[in-house]
C-alpha cells in the first residue's frame, strides 16, 4: 500500500522532471496523427468533389451536343422551326456558364492537390462549394429545359393539331419560370446559389406540372381532331408524346403524401418504400461534401427530395427523416458551419474579411490569384473581437514592440520570402505561407467570397 503510493509519487515526480520530453514525444505523435487524419480528410473531400464535378461534366457535355442537334432537327421538320431557335439559344447560353463554373471547380481542385497543407487543401476544396452547387442545380434545370425542347420538337412533328402559337406561349411561360433560377445560379454568388439550390424541389415540381399541362393540351387537341383522322395514326401520336424520355421527376401519386415519411436508409442507399431513390455511393459522396462544408445540408436534402419525386410540397430539409439526414452528414457541427442566413449559427452573421490584403490585389494577381483564385475568394468570417485583435486594434497585445498586425505581417513575410528566394513566389508557395500564418493567428481556413470593392 505504502509502496504503491510511493511508486505513484515517484512516477509523478519523474513525470514532472523528465516528463517534458516524453510529453513532447506524445505531442508529436498526436501531431503526426492529426496530420495523417487531415491528409485523409483532404483526400476524401477531393475525391467527392471530383466525383460530383465529373457527374455534372458528363451531363453538360451531353446537353452541349444534344441541344444544337435537336435545334437543327426542329428547324428541318417544321416551317416555323426557326421561331423556336431562341429557346435553343437559351439552352446553349446555360451550357456556357455551367462550363465556366466547372472549370473554376477544376482549377480549385488542382490547386488543392498541389498545396502542402491539408487544411489549406480542404479550405480550397470548400471554395468549390458555390460553383459546384450552382453547376449541379443548373445542370438539373437545363436537363429539364431539354425535356421541354424535346416536347416542342415532338409536338411540331407529330401534333399538327396543337397550335404553334399556343406552343410558343407555353415555351415562353416555362422559360420565365426557369430563368430567375438560372440567373441566380449563374451569378455564382454563394447566398443566391444556396437559396436557389435549396428551393429546387418546388421549382422542379412546377416544371413537372407544366410539362404535363402541355402534354395534356396536346393530347386533348389531338383527341378532338381524332374524330377526323385514322384511329391508328392517332394512337401512335399520343403514345409518342407520352413516352418521351424525361429527366423531370415523376409526380407523386395524387392525394396528400407526407414528405419524407416513406424515405429510409437501406444498405443500397436511400429507399422510398421498396424503390431505390439514390445509391449508397451517391449518399456517401454527398455526406463527404456536406461534412467538409462544400455543399450544404439543405441543398443535399433538396437533391434527395427531387430524386424521390417529392417536389410539390413546400417543405424544408428538416422534414426529411432523421436517418436520411444523418446519412447525408447532418450533425450539430455541420448545422453551425453553413451560412444559412438567420437559421445558421452566430458566425454566419459575422462580417467577412480579406485574408490576402486588398490593397495588394495587383501583387497577388501577378502571382496567379485570378479568376476562381482571385483574392476576393479568400475571405473569412470573423467576430469583431478576433478581427480587431489580428489587426492590432483593441487592447489585445501583451507586448508593445510587436504590433503583429495581420496585413503588414503577412505582406512583410511574403515579400521577404520572395526577396530571399530570389524569384517570384508561386501561387502555392503563397498559399502555404498564408496557411501557416492563419493557423498562428487562429483564423479559420474556411473561405467564402467577399466583396471586391
Amino acid at each position, binding site marked *: 500500500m505504502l509502496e504503491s503510493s510511493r511508486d505513484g509519487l515517484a512516477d509523478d515526480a519523474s513525470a514532472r522532471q523528465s516528463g517534458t520530453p516524453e510529453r513532447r514525444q506524445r505531442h508529436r505523435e498526436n501531431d503526426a496523427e492529426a496530420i495523417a487524419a487531415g491528409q485523409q480528410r483532404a483526400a476524401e473531400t477531393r475525391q467527392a468533389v471530383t466525383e460530383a464535378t465529373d457527374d455534372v461534366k458528363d451531363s453538360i457535355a451531353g446537353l452541349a451536343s444534344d441541344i444544337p442537334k435537336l435545334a437543327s432537327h426542329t428547324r428541318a421538320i417544321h416551317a416555323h422551326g426557326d421561331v423556336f431557335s431562341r429557346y435553343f439559344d437559351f439552352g446553349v447560353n446555360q451550357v456556357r456558364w455551367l462550363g465556366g463554373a466547372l472549370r473554376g471547380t477544376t482549377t480549385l481542385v488542382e490547386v488543392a492537390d498541389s498545396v502542402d497543407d491539408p487544411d489549406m487543401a480542404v479550405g480550397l476544396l470548400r471554395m468549390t462549394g458555390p460553383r459546384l452547387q450552382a453547376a449541379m442545380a443548373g445542370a438539373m434545370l437545363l436537363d429539364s429545359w431539354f425535356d421541354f425542347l424535346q416536347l416542342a420538337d415532338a409536338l411540331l412533328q407529330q401534333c399538327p393539331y396543337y397550335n404553334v402559337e399556343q406552343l410558343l406561349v407555353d415555351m415562353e411561360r416555362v422559360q420565365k419560370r426557369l430563368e430567375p433560377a438560372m440567373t441566380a445560379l449563374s451569378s455564382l454568388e454563394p447566398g443566391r446559389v444556396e437559396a436557389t439550390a435549396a428551393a429546387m424541389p418546388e421549382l422542379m415540381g412546377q416544371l413537372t406540372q407544366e410539362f404535363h399541362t402541355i402534354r395534356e393540351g396536346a393530347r386533348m387537341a389531338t383527341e378532338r381532331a381524332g374524330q377526323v383522322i385514322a384511329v391508328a395514326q392517332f394512337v401512335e401520336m399520343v403514345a409518342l408524346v407520352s413516352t418521351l424520355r424525361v429527366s423531370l421527376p415523376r409526380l407523386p401519386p395524387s392525394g396528400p403524401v407526407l414528405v419524407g415519411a416513406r424515405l429510409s436508409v437501406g444498405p443500397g442507399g436511400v429507399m422510398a418504400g421498396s424503390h431505390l431513390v439514390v445509391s449508397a455511393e451517391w449518399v456517401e459522396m454527398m455526406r463527404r461534401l456536406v461534412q467538409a462544408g462544400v455543399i450544404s445540408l439543405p441543398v443535399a436534402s433538396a437533391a434527395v427530395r427531387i430524386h424521390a419525386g417529392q417536389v410539390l410540397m413546400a417543405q424544408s430539409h428538416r422534414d426529411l427523416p432523421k436517418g436520411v439526414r444523418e446519412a447525408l452528414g447532418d450533425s450539430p457541427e455541420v448545422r453551425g458551419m453553413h451560412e444559412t442566413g438567420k437559421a445558421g449559427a452566430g458566425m454566419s452573421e459575422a462580417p467577412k474579411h480579406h485574408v490576402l490584403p486588398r490593397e495588394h490585389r495587383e501583387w497577388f494577381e501577378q502571382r496567379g490569384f485570378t479568376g476562381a483564385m482571385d483574392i476576393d475568394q479568400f475571405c473569412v468570417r470573423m467576430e469583431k473581437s478576433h478581427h480587431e485583435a489580428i489587426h492590432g486594434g483593441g487592447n489585445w497585445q501583451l507586448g508593445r514592440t*510587436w504590433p503583429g498586425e495581420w496585413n503588414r505581417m503577412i505582406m512583410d513575410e511574403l515579400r521577404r520570402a520572395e526577396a530571399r528566394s530570389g524569384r517570384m513566389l508561386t501561387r502555392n508557395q503563397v498559399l502555404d505561407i498564408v496557411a501557416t500564418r492563419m493557423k498562428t493567428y487562429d483564423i479559420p481556413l474556411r473561405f467564402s467570397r467577399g466583396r471586391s470593392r
Partner: protein
Amino acid sequence: MTDGRSWQGNWKTRIYERVRERGYDSLTAFAEARPTASLVELAEELGRDDIAGVQVFSGLVAEAERNHQVTRLVRAQCVRELHAYLPAGWPSEMGDENRFKVARALAGWYSFTPETHKERVDRAGDALLANPPLAGWHPLGPDDELLRTLLPDDQA
C-alpha cells in the same frame, strides 16, 4: 485550433493559468523548455482549442521587454522558424527547393521580430546567406554560438 475560439473570454488569464498548471512561472520558461517548437505547437500544448500562436508570441514579447531580454527572444524565435522549415539543419546545397525553405524561415523570423530588432534580423539574414553556416547547422536554442555571434545580447 483555427476555429477562432482562442479569442473568446479572457485569453490573457487563460494563458497564464495554463502556464502555471504546467509548472512554470513564466511563459518564457515554458517556451524555453521547448526551444524548437513552433508558436502553433506551443499554443496547442497550452490549449489545443483556445489559445493561438500569436497570443503566445505577444506574451513572450511582453516578458522579454520587462526583463530586457528581447534579443534573446529574437534568437529563440529564429530557432523555431529554422526548425519548422529546415528540421534537418542548414542545407548542404541551395537548389530552388532548399532556397525557398531558407527564405521562408528567414521571412518568418522577420515577421515575428519586435520592431526594435527588425533591422538587425534583416542584417543577420543577409550574413547567413552571404557566409552560410556549415551544412546541418541546427541551433537548438537561443544560446547557440553562431546565433549569439550574429545577434549578441545588448551591451547595456
